[in-house]
C-alpha cells in the first residue's frame, strides 16, 4: 500500500474521532438549547473563550471515554519494521496505516496518544478534587478561628510550598520510598480529610434533624470508611488491614504514590486560597447575622462562607486541573512513578525525546495533546471568571 498524504492522514484521523464529534455536537446542542436554565454552566456558552475552552476539555474527556472505538492498533504491540516510521506509513501486512507514525519500539503513536488521554482524565480531576477537599477542610478553620491554629497550619503549608516540586517528586516517587510504605502512610492522612469533610458538611447541615442526620452520617462513614480502607490497604505491603474479600479497590502502588504526591503538592495552595477567602468573607454582615442567630461554627464555615467563596474556587479548580496535568506530565517526563510501558503523555514524551532530532513525531504528538488540554482548561477558567464576575 502507498503511504498516506498529509491530507489523507488528517481525514483518517478526523474519521477515527467520529464518536467524539457526535458526543461534542450533542453536548453543545443540548447545552445551548437549555443554557438559560443551567446557571453558571449555561452562561459559559455566552462567552466565546469559555466555549472554545470547554470544547477542548470535553474533546479529551470524550476521547478518554471512547478510547476503545478510536484506537487503530493495540497500544503495546510492537511491529519492528515500523520503528520511527513517518506518519501515514502502512504496516507491513498492508491492512492498515500508522496514522501518526511509529515510535522507537514500533508502536502506533496515534493509538498511544488516544489511550494516554485516559490516564490524565482519570487521575488529574480526581487528584484535584482530593486536594480541594484537603485544602478546604484545613483552610476554613484556619481562616475562621485564626490564632495559633492558623499559625501552625500556615507554617505547614508554607513548608510544603517552599519545597521545589521536582525535588519532592524525586524524593517521594522512588521504588525505595514505596518499599518503606511511606506513600501509604501519607495516603492514610490525606484520604482521611475528604471523609472528615463530608461528615462535617452533613452533620452541620442536618444537626437539627438528629434521626436523619444519624442515618446520613452513618452511611457516609460506612461507605467512605470502606473505600478509605480499600484504597490504603493493599495485600503484601506494610498496610494490610482489610481482609481480601472486602478489599474491593485495588490501586497499584505506583499509581497511588503519583496520586498522593500530586494531592500533596496542590493542597497547600488550595489551603492558602481558601484561608484568604475566609478572612475576607467572615467580616460580612450575613456572617455576623448567622453568629447572632446562634449558628455553630462549622455550619457558618461550610454553609455560609463556602458557598459565597465558590466563584474564585471554581475558577481555580479549572486552572488547578491544568496544573495537575502538567505535574503528571512532569512525573512521566522524568520516568517517575508510572511504568515506562504506560501510554500517558509524559512518559511518551520522555521515550521520544532521546530521538527528537531524528524523529520528532513520537514526542511531538503527545506534546500537542497535553498542550491543547491545558490550554482548554485555562481558557475554560478564563471564561468562567468572566461570567462569574457578571453577577
Amino acid at each position, binding site marked *: 500500500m502507498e503511504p498516506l498524504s498529509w491530507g489523507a492522514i488528517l481525514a483518517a484521523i478526523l474519521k477515527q474521532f467520529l464518536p467524539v464529534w457526535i458526543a461534542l455536537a450533542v453536548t453543545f446542542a443540548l447545552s445551548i438549547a437549555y443554557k438559560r436554565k443551567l446557571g453558571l454552566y449555561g452562561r459559559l456558552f455566552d462567552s466565546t473563550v469559555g466555549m472554545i475552552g470547554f470544547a477542548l476539555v470535553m474533546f479529551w474527556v470524550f476521547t478518554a471515554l471512547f478510547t476503545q472505538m478510536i484506537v487503530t492498533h493495540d497500544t503495546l504491540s510492537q511491529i519492528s519494521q515500523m520503528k520511527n516510521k513517518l506518519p501515514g506509513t502502512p504496516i507491513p501486512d498492508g491492512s492498515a496505516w500508522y496514522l501518526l507514525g511509529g515510535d522507537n519500539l514500533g508502536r502506533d503513536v496515534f493509538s498511544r496518544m488516544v489511550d494516554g488521554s485516559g490516564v490524565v482524565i482519570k487521575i488529574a480531576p480526581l487528584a484535584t478534587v482530593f486536594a480541594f477537599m484537603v485544602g478546604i477542610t484545613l483552610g476554613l478553620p484556619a481562616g475562621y478561628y485564626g490564632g495559633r491554629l492558623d499559625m501552625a497550619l500556615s*507554617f505547614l503549608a*508554607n*513548608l510544603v510550598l*517552599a*519545597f*521545589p*516540586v*521536582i*525535588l519532592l517528586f*524525586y*524524593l*517521594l516517587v*522512588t*521504588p*525505595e*520510598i514505596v*518499599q*518503606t510504605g*511511606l506513600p501509604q502512610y501519607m495516603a492514610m492522612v490525606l484520604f482521611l480529610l475528604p471523609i472528615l469533610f463530608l461528615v462535617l458538611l452533613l452533620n452541620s447541615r442536618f444537626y437539627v434533624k438528629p434521626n436523619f442526620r444519624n442515618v446520613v452520617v452513618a452511611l457516609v462513614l460506612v461507605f467512605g470508611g470502606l473505600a478509605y480502607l480499600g484504597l490504603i490497604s493493599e495485600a503484601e505491603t506494610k498496610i494490610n488491614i482489610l481482609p481480601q474479600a472486602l478489599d474491593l479497590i485495588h490501586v497499584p502502588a505506583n499509581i497511588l504514590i503519583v496520586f498522593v504526591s500530586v494531592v500533596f503538592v496542590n493542597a497547600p495552595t488550595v489551603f492558602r486560597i481558601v484561608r484568604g477567602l475566609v478572612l475576607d468573607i467572615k467580616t460580612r454582615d450575613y456572617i455576623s447575622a448567622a453568629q447572632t442567630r446562634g449558628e455553630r461554627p462549622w455550619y457558618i464555615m461550610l454553609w455560609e462562607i463556602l458557598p459565597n467563596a465558590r466563584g474564585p474556587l471554581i475558577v481555580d479548580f479549572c486552572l488547578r486541573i*491544568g496544573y495537575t496535568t*502538567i505535574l503528571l*506530565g*512532569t512525573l512521566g*517526563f*522524568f520516568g517517575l512513578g508510572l511504568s515506562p510501558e504506560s501510554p500517558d503523555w*509524559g512518559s511518551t*514524551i520522555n521515550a*521520544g*525525546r532521546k530521538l*527528537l*532530532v*531524528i*524523529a*520528532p*513525531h513520537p*514526542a*511531538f504528538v503527545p*506534546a*500537542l495533546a*497535553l*498542550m491543547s488540554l*491545558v*490550554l482548554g*482548561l*485555562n*481558557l475554560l477558567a*478564563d471564561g468562567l471568571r468572566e461570567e462569574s464576575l457578571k453577577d
Partner: protein
Amino acid sequence: MLKFIARRFGLMALTALVLTFIVFTLTNLAPNLEKLARAEGSVRMDDAAIVSWIEENGHGGSLIGRYSQWLGVLPGWVRTDEKGVTRGRCITEGSDPALAPAYCGILQGDWGTSTFAKAPVSQVLGRSLASTGWLMLVVMLVMVPVSLFLGVAAGMREGSRLDRSISTFAIATSATPEYISGVILIALFASAGSGLSPLLASWGWIEGKTLFMGTSTSAVDNITFWNFTLPVMTIALYGIGYITRMTRASMAEVMTAQYIRTARLKGVSFGSIVVKHALRNALIAPFTVIMLQFPWLLNGVVIVESLFNYKGFGWTLVQAAGNNDIQLLLGCSVVAVLVVLVTQLISDIGYVFLNPRIRIS
C-alpha cells in the same frame, strides 16, 4: 521594619531547618542505605554484612544524631577497627586522625563527598551552579523586559485588538510547560528532518544542517547563539506568559484609577500618562511575581537541563537522585530550599519597600 525583617529571618531559618531534616530523613531511609552499602562495599554482601557496613560507616544510630553531625552541631563519628585504623566522618583517608577537626558539617562548610562524581560536593555544586547562573542570567535578560513590555502594551488599552492578541499569546505560552515547548522548539528549529531547518538549509541561508542545536552540552564551556538559544527560549516562554498576564492585570487596574482620568482630562498626552503616571504603580505587583517566579524557574531549569543535556544544577540534581548519591542530593536540596526561601524573603521585603501605602504605616 527591622522587627518585621528579623521575624521573617527567624521563620526562614526554622523552615530551612525543618526542610533539610525532612530531606535528610527521606534520603537516609533504610533501603537507600542498603543500596549505598552495595554500591560502596560489595554487591555480594549478605544482610548481616550490610548491617555492619552501615554501622561501620557512621550511618547507624539515631536519625537526629546523624542529622546533627551532617549539620555540624555534633562532633562527627570516629571509629577504630580491630586493625587499629581510626576512621571517621571528619578524617580524610590517609591523614592523621589526631589533626582532624571534631566538627564537620554544612555549617563548617564541609558538604561531604559525592559518590557519583567522585569529588567534594561543594566543588561539584559550585561548578554546576556557575553553569546554571549563566543560563538564568540570559533567561532573565530576555524574559523580564519582554514580558513587562508586552504586559504594559496589553494593559494600557484594555479590550483593544493589541490586548486581545497579546493575552491570547500569554495564555497559550503559560499553558505550555517546558517539556512541551522544548520538544516543539527542537522539532521546529533543531531537527534535520522536520520543521524549518531543512527548508533554510536548502535555501542556503544557514551553514550547518540545523538552525539551532538540539543539545547544549557544549555550552558549559563555550556559550554561543547556536547552542544556547533553545534552552533559554524554552525557560523564558513559560515565564513570559505568566508575567505578562500579571503585568497586564496590574496595568489595566491602574489605568482605570481616578488620577489617570484626571491627568487625561487636564490634557496630558496618552504616552506621557502611561510612562510618567501609570508605569510606576503598575510595576509593584509584577515585581513580586518575578521574584516568586524563581522557584518555578528552578523546576524549568531541571527539565530544560535534562532535555538539552546542559550540565548545570538541574542536571546534577537529576543525576544525584538517579544514582542514589545521598550527599550530593542533600547539597542540591539545601541550595534549592535556600533559593526558594531567599526569593520569598526578597519579594516580601521588596513589596513593602515599593508600596508606599504599606511602607508608611
